[in-house]
């Protein structure tokens, strides 16, 4: 099961080939290499579109206070349930809040959700998979079993526990989504580590007498990062969706936060009378998810050695 899973995951999410690039020490190299990797990724149309969308999104998030005409939770900014018009391009909700402004501000939360959740799963998952793959033996067995255990929890269960222990909030939902996705990253990291560990350069470093830390962080880590980047990009989109799903179940963002999933969930009560309340945040989610998906897919394709055209 394990191996197949890895293969499936690798095929679904990761590219196997390290990219090309230049610089002096391990990490600086990685950075420079990332540059190169980036440029080659950006030669892919899908990735470019994704990148542009992501950039726009980040800019919108950053400049939300300047772009948004109203504060996101200002009630009575307009009359309630106004249809989209010039002053309120996306209409207003039941409290007369400007949906356009809320969607703009929501970009911040969404990017936060994506980045933090992925940050958690990426860090923990990568370390787990890396250490398991590096150490082998019992460490490996125990770690990967634990990963399996986390894997059989549903996201909702983890979310509920996190929410219960820490209180319901968007940040706890992020943590939950992050934890729930750890197995995925751990497995990719693990399988890539196994591959890298069997490359001769690892043996070469080993017989130079390199210690554990040096082997793990200087030799293995930089080499397993590129495929993980791809997984992470795709992971951002799943995290956004997952967080929206949790908000839909009332386990995520708390009102009046303009998180898109929460807006959608609240908006469904007006599905018939004021569909715009649900449509715009929904479209925003779709575009975001699409953007990260395109980006991730693009990078993967670009890294794919077979894709020469």
């Amino acid at each position, binding site marked *: 099961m394990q191996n197949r899973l890895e293969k499936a995951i690798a095929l679904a999410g990761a590219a196997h080939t390290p990219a090309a690039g230049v610089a002096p020490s391990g990490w600086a190299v990685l950075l420079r290499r990332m540059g190169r990797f980036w440029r*080659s990724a950006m*030669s892919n149309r899908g990735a470019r579109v994704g990148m542009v969308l992501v950039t726009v999104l980040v800019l919108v998030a950053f400049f939300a206070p300047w772009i948004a005409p109203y504060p996101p939770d200002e009630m009575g900014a307009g009359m309630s349930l106004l249809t989209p018009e010039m002053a309120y391009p996306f209409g207003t909700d039941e409290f007369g809040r400007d949906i356009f402004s809320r969607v703009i501000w929501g970009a911040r939360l969404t990017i936060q959700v994506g980045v933090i959740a992925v940050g958690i799963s990426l860090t923990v998952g990568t370390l787990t998979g890396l250490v398991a793959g590096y150490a082998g033996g019992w460490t490996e067995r125990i770690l990967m079993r634990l990963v399996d255990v986390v894997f059989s929890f549903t996201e909702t269960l983890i979310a509920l526990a996190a929410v219960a222990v820490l209180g319901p909030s968007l940040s706890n939902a992020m943590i939950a989504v992050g934890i729930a996705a750890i197995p995925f990253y751990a497995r990719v990291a693990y399988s890539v580590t196994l591959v890298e560990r069997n490359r001769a350069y690892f043996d070469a470093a080993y017989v130079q007498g390199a210690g554990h830390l040096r082997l793990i962080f200087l030799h293995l880590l930089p080499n397993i990062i590129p495929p993980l980047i791809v997984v992470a990009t795709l992971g951002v989109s799943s995290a956004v969706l997952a967080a929206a799903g949790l908000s839909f179940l009332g386990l995520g963002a708390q009102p009046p936060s303009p998180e898109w999933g929460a807006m959608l969930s609240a908006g469904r009560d007006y599905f018939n009378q004021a569909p715009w309340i649900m449509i715009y945040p929904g479209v925003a989610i779709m575009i975001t998810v699409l953007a990260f998906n395109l980006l991730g897919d693009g990078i993967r394709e670009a890294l794919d050695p077979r894709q*020469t*055209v």
Partner: protein
Amino acid sequence: MSATKSIEAPNDEPATRPAPVLEVRDLCTEFRTKAGVGRAVDGVSFTLHEGEILAIVGESGSGKSVTSLSIMGLIPDPPGRIAGGSVTYGGRDLTRLDEKALQKLRGNEIAMIFQEPMTSLNPVLSIGRQMTEGIRQHTGMSEAEARKHAVEMMRRVSIPAPEKRLGEYPHQFSGGMLQRIMIAIAMSCSPRVLIADEPTTALDVTIQAQILELMRDLRATTGASIMLITHDMGVVAEMADRVVVMYAGRKVEEGRVEDIFARPRHPYTRGLLAALPVLGTAGEVGGTQLNEIPGVVPALTDLPNGCRFSDRCALSTDKCLAEDPPFADRVGAHSAACWHSDRLAPTMEATS
């Protein structure tokens, strides 16, 4: 049969050579890559005669495989495409044939075996299925007949207990056996032309010897012409009647095998031969230096001006840097694409 004769009498005059079976003229094959369009094969011409073993040698990346795939019409498009030239077989130009017609030829009249027997057979289909499907495709035999034929072929390539092994899968065979299976598949429709792309490179010397022996036998019994692609000068010397030397997508030298080895006319060929440690010739350890060819094979998208070998060639002159030497098809079979061919032959003879 004359083919067998040519082994026994390798010094036959060119004039008595049998008729051509396959003729490649000015073949150009391109690949579009991120770095640009690269001509993996650039104006290569040669002829394969009946019952002959023609070796194509050259280092990795010189275009040997692409040449063979172009003949078979198996260049992946995209990114590749045949940009020019012709491949004439039985009066027809294979590069212009439609898919249907090509299918009739492939595996039937022109068969091919590949370098890596392990990856060249489908791991999830039984050996029997992989052997019979081609036979049935071309002969219209029933499954039972095809199986019988397959068993027969397996026996010919000395696979023990062939009936039993038909039901097994590639991973249950050793590399040498798989290569024999590949040959059995290729020979099962008695092709007139067998293209063998580095058939022994992945194998051990003892197994290689078996396979080479087998190919010679097959040629002797079926009279097939063999195009043998390799980078191993030893294999060339053992097997070939004639040799084409390729470098960076070009044919740089062509001639009878004895001529090539005795009097190479291209500095690249000479370099290759001199770089080879030859069994039984070593003196004290480190006593004799092997000949080095400096530099590396140029990238197809970044070829030097003039002669493609000029940047690695000891004889290189201004002319070499400026002008691409044409392939001088001289009288007799032996010719090369080098401005300095004339200066070479005697030097080599002097040292050998």
